């Protein structure tokens, strides 16, 4: 199989965007069969999903986490080693909400990311950019009573990957989220405003609706920047999917 060029992939991205516009139906999530992202080819089901309408379904409840599942330092990715990591220090904060706008309380938020050079602390990341002995790029925390989370980290770098020739991922932070029901489970990626790589990236562009895509991009917010310390970004997250009941206690 010949390796596609960026031009090939960009053409496919444009075709899928056009088809999505013509369909006139807003889809919030990426289609699982999105060929411009080549790894999806053999890894998406071809049969339609089966809709479960059972009000007693176990998935309408979900796992819980607590203070024992995090440490105080977990939310500060710049303080997990003896020294300070290299890069641009940032704070990322926002709220986790359900589709009715209710805060998701006391739930686990996990993040992971590349370092400032665009290298993951992962053995299989072969990008010849330097590892940073003072940065692992893993964090977690629990949302507060208003659904708020907050991380201190460094801005990740862009990095190359092998989807096609000269493929580069825009800088992003991976987020893993739990709601009050297992149906609301979400793993996604947060991007930084104004990144010139957006248009070239089939993973971001797999979200074909421009407004939905925008919801993956954090906002720079000057009031969140800490003088002489860090730049601030806000990113709110809305979880999809139904839940059995709204449980006030313990969530």
């Amino acid at each position, binding site marked *: 199989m010949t390796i596609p060029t960026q031009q090939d992939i960009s053409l496919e991205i444009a075709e899928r965007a056009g088809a999505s516009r013509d369909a006139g139906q807003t889809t919030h999530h990426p289609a699982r069969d999105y060929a411009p992202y080549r790894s999806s080819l053999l890894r998406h089901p071809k049969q339609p999903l089966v809709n479960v309408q059972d009000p007693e379904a*176990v998935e309408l409840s979900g796992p819980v986490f607590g203070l024992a599942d995090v440490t105080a330092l977990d939310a500060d990715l710049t303080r997990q080693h003896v020294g300070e990591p290299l890069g641009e220090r940032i704070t990322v904060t926002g709220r986790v909400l359900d589709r009715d706008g209710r805060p998701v309380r006391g739930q686990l938020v996990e993040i992971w990311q590349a370092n400032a050079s665009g290298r993951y602390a992962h053995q299989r990341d072969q990008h010849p950019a330097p590892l940073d002995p003072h940065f692992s790029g893993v964090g977690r925390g629990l949302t507060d009573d208003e659904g708020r989370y907050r991380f201190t980290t460094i801005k990740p770098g862009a990095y190359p990957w092998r989807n096609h020739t000269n493929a580069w991922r825009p800088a992003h932070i991976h987020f893993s989220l739990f709601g009050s029901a297992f149906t609301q489970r979400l793993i996604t990626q947060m991007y930084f405003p104004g990144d010139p790589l957006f248009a070239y990236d089939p993973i971001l562009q797999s979200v074909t609706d421009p407004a939905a895509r925008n919801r993956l991009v954090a906002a720079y917010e000057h009031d969140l920047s800490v003088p002489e310390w860090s730049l601030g970004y806000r990113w709110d997250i809305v979880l999809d999917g139904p839940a059995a009941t709204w449980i006030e206690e313990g969530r």
Partner: protein
Amino acid sequence: MLPTPSQTVGPFYGYALPFPQGGEIAPAGHDASAITVHGRVLDGAGDPVPDALLEIWQPAPDGSREGASGSLRRDQTTGGYLGRDGVTFTGFGRVATDPDGRYSFRTLPPGGVPYLSVCVFARGLLHHLFTRIYLPGFDPESDPLLATLEPERRSTLIAEPAAERVYRFDVHLQGERETVFLEFR
């Protein structure tokens, strides 16, 4: 409010999401009743998926769906992991596949329903997939989901007994034996 779109878990979650004893959902001291579920995650060519992540959610043996915290207890002194406390049944597990696409976990039988809920993540999968592992030994017609499925599709959701209290369940992301995947709206 409009939802935040999903994005793939990618290939590099391995140092962030899996945790020690992620697949040890059964607390210690339940050896007689614990069950083991294992299998492989396979792609449309029948090749193993070495970078998939499976999450399990289930009721406790008494049918409770409250869950409990403590699945990934952290060591507040070193910042490492303490492991589960050996007593609490949290109902939640998380396991990554190995280079052969294999996974396994050990748990207690779910109370009130014949299934374990599963969420599948993988590189190449832009949006996670839900499925269920049904444990054999019940009437499929009595289950609201299975009753609606053709026998051939239905069988992709039912684990096969492999040994005493050991069950085999393969996840086929695509292909002839493609697993039934679920949505909740």
